[in-house]
């Protein structure tokens, strides 16, 4: 025992561990910084989990356009704990996105970005952007048909950048088309380039947390004055500060540990997201779907007015990023309490509602044709004793693709209006005009249907009342 102690003393003395690290982990922090202050550290621990599981995955993964899919099949189906490992990396990514969001919202609600912590916020915005980019490239490294089409979609978005869009798209894909270089590049972005930036910015972010101190819980009426704040803060710490370890840190550790355990349980129960079809760009019978955290973006592209979309695709993210960066410059002093900043709180609620709604409608994706719809059975139509014209109309309604977008009695898609009772709304003549000419978001079928086919479909629809 004594010898061990001596050895440790020697190491500690020569390495300077206690001298340099102890003051950092025991530095005083404001009292009453309780459970709402745990999201940042939880994000950090999730990131470490991602690094470790990512390294483990890289031992099994083939970063090659040709073989990645096979290696994923191997990891998922054959490698010991491979499916769980993929699952942890997936749920860890999901947790990181959620926690980054919560951390940011908490920082905004308590206005911790105000003086002198503007740079904390700015480095945090960088980390948010990196995290989203990691999420996007990560789902792509799964390199199934979803991965291939995700990279095409990303290239199309970059293509909207004026003048250089085409070149940016080509750089992203590593060539004129999807090919051998595509996955190598995404692998490099996901595994080397962006993580390197994340390490640097996390270090900077943490350094700033120590340098500027953890923000004290806000109190209505206690304003921030840049001239006196730093002195006041130091005085407050001297009088009431508590050591970070263990007085504050135990909460961070409990929450982080619980989150990591939950991630592992989720991974063990649900496993990794299933692979779709192989990454063959010539196979078109596939419906690309991004992972849930990309769904709000995906939904936005369907819902935006089509005329402004190409511009919005470029300006939307740009304005959002500029806005996020400018928040600490718009207001850097004064009131921090959320109770005294009603408009800021209103903004937070709006963003929440906006993102959650986009997520919900994006998962439903009602704008997409429902290619899986089954032929409408005669038992599902309104006419109780249909004649042969109506029956043919029912068959044509399915065969001509009407049912991809229109629902009748739970059969069909949701891109267009539900036609279960269309006979009440439109006359035979109106039905004909609508089908022949099309509508706001409906193709004109005038050149597609013969007169006879049109009559049959209309005869059927007229009975739907």
């Amino acid at each position, binding site marked *: 025992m004594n010898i061990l102690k001596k050895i440790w003393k020697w190491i500690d003395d020569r390495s300077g561990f206690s001298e340099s690290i102890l003051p950092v982990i025991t530095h005083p922090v404001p009292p009453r910084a309780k459970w709402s202050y745990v999201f940042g550290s939880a994000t950090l621990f999730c990131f470490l989990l991602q690094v470790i599981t990512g390294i483990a995955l890289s031992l099994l993964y083939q970063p090659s356009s*040709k073989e990645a899919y096979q290696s994923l099949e191997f990891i998922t189906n054959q490698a010991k704990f491979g499916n769980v490992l993929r699952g942890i990396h997936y749920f860890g990514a999901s947790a990181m996105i959620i926690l980054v969001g919560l951390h940011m919202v908490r920082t905004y609600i308590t206005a911790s970005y105000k003086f002198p912590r503007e740079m904390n916020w700015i480095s945090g915005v960088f980390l948010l952007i990196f995290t989203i980019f990691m999420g996007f490239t990560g789902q792509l490294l799964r390199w199934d048909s979803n991965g291939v089409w995700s990279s095409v979609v990303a290239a199309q978005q970059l293509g909207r950048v004026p003048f250089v*869009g085409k070149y940016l798209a080509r750089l992203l894909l590593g060539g004129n088309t*999807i090919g051998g270089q595509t996955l190598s590049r995404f692998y490099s972005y996901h595994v080397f380039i962006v993580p390197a930036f994340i390490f640097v910015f996390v270090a900077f972010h943490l350094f700033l947390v120590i340098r500027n101190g953890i923000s004290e819980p806000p109190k209505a009426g206690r304003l921030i004055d840049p001239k006196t704040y730093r002195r006041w803060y130091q005085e407050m710490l001297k009088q009431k500060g508590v050591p970070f370890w263990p007085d504050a840190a135990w909460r961070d550790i409990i929450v982080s540990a619980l989150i990591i355990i939950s991630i592992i349980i989720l991974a063990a129960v649900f496993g990794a997201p299933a692979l779709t079809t192989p990454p*063959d760009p010539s*196979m078109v019978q596939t419906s690309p779907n991004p992972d849930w955290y990309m769904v709000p973006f995906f939904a936005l592209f369907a819902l935006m007015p089509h005329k402004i979309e190409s511009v919005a695709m470029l300006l939307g993210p740009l304005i959002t990023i500029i806005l996020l960066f400018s928040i600490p410059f718009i207001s850097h002093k004064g009131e921090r309490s959320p109770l005294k900043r009603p408009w800021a709180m209103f903004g937070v609620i709006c963003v929440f509602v906006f993102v959650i709604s986009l997520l919900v409608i994006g998962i439903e994706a009602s704008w997409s044709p429902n*290619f899986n719809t089954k032929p409408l059975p005669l038992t599902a139509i309104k006419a109780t004793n249909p004649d042969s014209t109506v029956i043919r109309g029912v068959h044509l309604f399915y065969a001509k693709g009407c049912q991809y977008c229109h629902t009748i009695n739970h059969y069909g898609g949701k891109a267009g209006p539900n036609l279960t009772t269309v006979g009440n709304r439109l006359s035979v003549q109106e039905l004909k005009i609508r089908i022949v000419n099309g509508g706001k978001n409906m193709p004109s079928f005038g050149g597609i249907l013969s007169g006879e086919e049109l009559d049959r479909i209309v005869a059927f629809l007229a009975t739907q009342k």
Partner: protein
Amino acid sequence: MKISLGLAGLSAAIAAVPVISALIAPLLESKEEKWRTVGKVTDFAAGTTTLVTFINADPEPYAGITAKSAAWLRRNNQTDFIAFAANCTHLGCPVRWEKDAHLFMCPCHGGVYYANGTVAAGPPPKPLTRYEVRVFKDEVQIKTAPLPITNISASRSV
């Protein structure tokens, strides 16, 4: 001191050359597009639209199945072929030809095109992109091309 800083700068600059070259490699290479045979003229009936696949121009030996591209080949009459890129002009998702409905449909955001490639519904800002196609010794050939990227000006031309 100036010499030491200058020398350090020089070493960094020299090391950067191959690094930057690797980074922008896709912009440096110029690939000659190639005519690829996708079938015999008699394989395609007049009035039909068929999915054809072909190998991109000069793929890397390690590209595997990602070297493939797809096009929708429409035969209008004896001599007239049109080849549409399978990519939706909205965000590039793969459109599928619904032969009974006579429409191309995109699964991502509900883009729909008529048989001639013009937009029928949904968000696409412009008609389906076309590949060059020719008949050569009774074979239908498609000229490879870069992945069609919609640029920002497309929205103004609607």
